[in-house]
């Protein structure tokens, strides 16, 4: 009886020994960049369109990036200038449009056209990773000078494209 009890004790000691192994976990976080213009900022109406003054509109663009990033702007017309709805050939404003960003600060730069070299200019470059959306949206200010030589009684338009990429 006594030997049997001792035997049981030895077995319990053997059961308390630990065993281990490991698994290496790897994670490769990909570069992720997103850009979005909120719907309510996709169609912007310039205010104060009168000769010898500069009309402006406030817009915004949201960027999310986990790497340093850059933002370029370009326009859809050959010269980058706003084009009128009438006239043959269509009337074009004499002055180009300028844009600047408020936070992060960038520009002002003149928005180039498709015939410009380069056809896109940098508004922001080497900007730190982060979530620039919602309350932290990148506020933009578009400015368009109007001259007396610009034909009146017209609706002018321009599509401005923002492109974001790794810095």
């Amino acid at each position, binding site marked *: 009886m006594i030997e049997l009890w001792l035997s049981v004790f030895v077995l319990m000691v053997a059961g308390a020994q630990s065993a281990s192994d490991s698994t290496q976990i790897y994670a490769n976080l*990909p570069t992720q960049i997103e850009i979005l213009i909120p719907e309510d900022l996709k*169609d912007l109406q310039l205010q104060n369109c009168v000769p010898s003054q500069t009309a402006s509109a406030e817009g915004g663009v949201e960027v999310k990036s986990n790497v340093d990033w850059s933002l370029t702007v370009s326009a859809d017309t050959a010269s980058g200038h706003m084009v009128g709805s009438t006239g043959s050939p269509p009337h074009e404003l004499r002055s180009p449009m300028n844009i600047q960003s408020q936070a992060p600060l960038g520009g002002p730069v003149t928005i180039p056209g498709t015939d410009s070299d380069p056809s896109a200019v940098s508004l922001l470059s080497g900007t730190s990773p982060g979530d620039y959306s919602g309350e932290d949206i990148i506020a933009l200010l578009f400015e368009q000078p109007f001259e007396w030589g610009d034909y*009146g*009684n017209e609706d002018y338009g321009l599509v401005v494209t923002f492109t974001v990429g790794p810095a």
Partner: protein
Amino acid sequence: MKLSAKFRLYLLFLAVVALSCNAEAEFAESANLLAEYGSNVELVLDMQNELDLEEAAPGRDGLAVGTIIIRANVDWELQAMARPSKMQRSNNSVKLKNPLRILYLDSDLPSCVASSRGEVSLTGSYVQHLRGGPGEAVIPVDFRQQFDWTDVPDRYNIKVYFRILPL
């Protein structure tokens, strides 16, 4: 079981690498900028309200000078008239024999519709004098009055009205 876990990790690693490659691309968004640019015209008479004709003498032209500034962003027409239709003595209704003339001097003048020489005789009703397009036109003018030997020596006056109409 161990082999299966490793295989899953391997697949996850491949997926992460694939995402990372895709994220290197640039992303773009566009905003439409619109401007309603109305018609505007401005007329400035850059001269004194009261002009004295100099060198008034029989058989000669009395002369006064001034400048008309027209700013417009549409095609326009300048009209002018005089009241009374000819210069009139201050104390009665006797008029000079000849009408007051306006000579538009700018060689870059918008088309003068009233006279190929740029000289127009004023009448008692509005008459087209000039036409032009968008821009700023600074037009030096001479007011010329030919005095006849039959004109009675006295002080004469006349009021000249200008108006600009968008076309």
